[in-house]
């Protein structure tokens, strides 16, 4: 727990410093009246750093505690998460080239097969509904979804 706390508050501390550095690029006080664009970000950075420092000190003054049960996910859990994040990232990258329907078809087949553990026919039907079906529905509503190079929505 101690090490975890140190990492978390250390990250916050660093982020606070980053915010302060960024805020220095701008006027601290406005050119005409009142606080400028850098004013609030500067003080929020200071607040973040102060809170993080205080929490770090507290962490080391208190006796060490064990991590809460189940904090570190099992291997299966990690695999599932990586699948989801990976699929989302892949969809994000391919959407503008492949278009909405095809990307989502692939996305759904992958996730339904990997995590849904359904028979193949059901996976395909559900994926088609979630990709081409939604594309059709939103087309009716005049919502524009990304078209790919193929011109398919």
């Amino acid at each position: 727990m101690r090490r975890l706390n140190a990492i978390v508050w250390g990250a916050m501390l660093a982020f606070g410093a980053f915010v302060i550095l960024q805020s220095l690029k701008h006027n601290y006080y406005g050119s005409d009246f009142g606080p400028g664009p850098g004013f609030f970000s500067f003080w929020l950075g200071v607040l973040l750093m102060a809170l993080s420092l205080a929490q770090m000190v507290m962490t080391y003054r208190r006796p060490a505690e064990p991590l809460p049960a189940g904090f570190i996910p099992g291997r299966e859990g990690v695999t599932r998460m990586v699948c989801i994040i990976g699929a989302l990232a892949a969809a994000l990258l391919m959407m503008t080239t492949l278009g909405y329907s095809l990307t989502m078809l692939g996305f759904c087949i992958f996730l339904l097969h990997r995590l849904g553990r359904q028979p193949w026919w059901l996976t395909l039907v559900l994926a088609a509904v979630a990709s081409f079906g939604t594309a059709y529905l939103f087309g009716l509503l005049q919502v524009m979804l990304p078209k790919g190079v193929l011109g398919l929505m």
Partner: protein
Amino acid sequence: MEAFQHLMTGFAAALSPLNLLFATIGCVLGTLIGVLPGLGPAAGTALLIPITFKLEPTSAIIMLAAIYYGAMYGGTITSVLINVPGEAASVVTCLDGYEMAKQGRAGAALGIAAIGSFFGGTVATFGLVLVALPLTRFALKFGSPEYFSLLLVGLSLVMGLAGKSLAKALVMGALGLIFSFVGVDPVEGAPRFTFDIAPLMDGIRFVPVVMGFFGIGEILINAERSLAGVIAEGGKVSSFLPRRDEVRISILSILRGTGLGFFLGLIPGTNSAVASFMSYSIERKFSRHPDAFGTGIIEGVAAPETANNAYANAALIPLFTLGLPGSPTIAILMGALIMNGLTPGPLLFSQHAGFVWAVIASLYIGNLILLILNLPLVGWWAKLLKIPYNILMVFILVFCIIGAYSLNNSMFDVGMMLVCGLLGYLFKKLDFPLAPAVLTLILGPLMEQSLRESLSVSQGSFAIFFTRPISLFFLIVAALIMVTSAWQAWPSTIREESKEAQV
């Protein structure tokens, strides 16, 4: 009494079969728009403007208004069922509504939201009839300084949203503010934290962030554990009424939510998310068991949902009486009015009395239709949760992608949602509360803007906040809330520490 007679004539017009039909169509469409991702109330109403060209003005506005408050309710459904807020106002409903759904009480959450929405909407419309004109004069007294001080009251409530650790709540509040400062600053036009990325110039958009924090974050948390048994089977889904022990507290919450929503609706420039969030914070602040918030308690749904609908209906007051649209959706409604040859403003009541009162009467009827329509549907919506989570989850993800993309037709927003999903997962895991960050993300830009405006008007003097009575009043309220929050938080952190020390 004159108003009463006008209202009766209005009812006669609004109850004509055709207008009833349009109100019903509006309610159904509105609910769908709220449920479907990517179509917020503003976009949904805008899409339908061309249709209204072909209708008679009264019917057209009745339908648009019904879509507007229908969508407000529809947004709640996704928040409760799958933790995906479809629009800003229903974010806060995720906090307790989704927890209730996980415990098998989705029906009760949706039910109390429908009842609260109905009550809040009806009372606000009543206010529209009785006190519209004097109240708008009061609303005009709200300049930038009053507005800033009011928002400060909202900000002071952040401390009340703290869970176990005040420090974590403050950090999250600060992070929300920092996020909200991304973009071109309203003072000098200087781009802050934009790193030359064009989509960041306009700031971080709210909806992708909350979809990531809540929707994607929740899916990741569930995926990490196990996809089975995320949602408890408990109870009969058809039971949409609160438990007997919750009735009294629900009634009080609904009353408070109505008052707050109505008041904020009068002030042009606030938005419904401010109303729902402040109402949630106030409930928590005055609750006897503040720690239970976020674990699925009914007042965490009842109050904000009521406030949000009371706001929606009260926001029509400045529109009708002064021609001032308080929110983007109302602005679209105003556009529709103008395009139908009706000029909103004080003359609307005298020149088009028949029209105005028919629309006002239709607000009552529409709110009733919405209730009748939604209570029986609650069971059906809740049944969606019987879909195995590992399949439902894929659909939720598709839903989120469409929602994040189509709000602004931007893949960047989808990426933002993914990043915020990861952040939301980490924060949840490390027990950092999300609510303060979301609240400050809403308040940040509004506060900075109004502070700057005030200081421009006063030419740099901070006295403007203290010399104007309404502003001073809110400053005192904010100070009181901060002092009492600190007072309450102090002993509890010490208690917490000693408890932790024993472990």
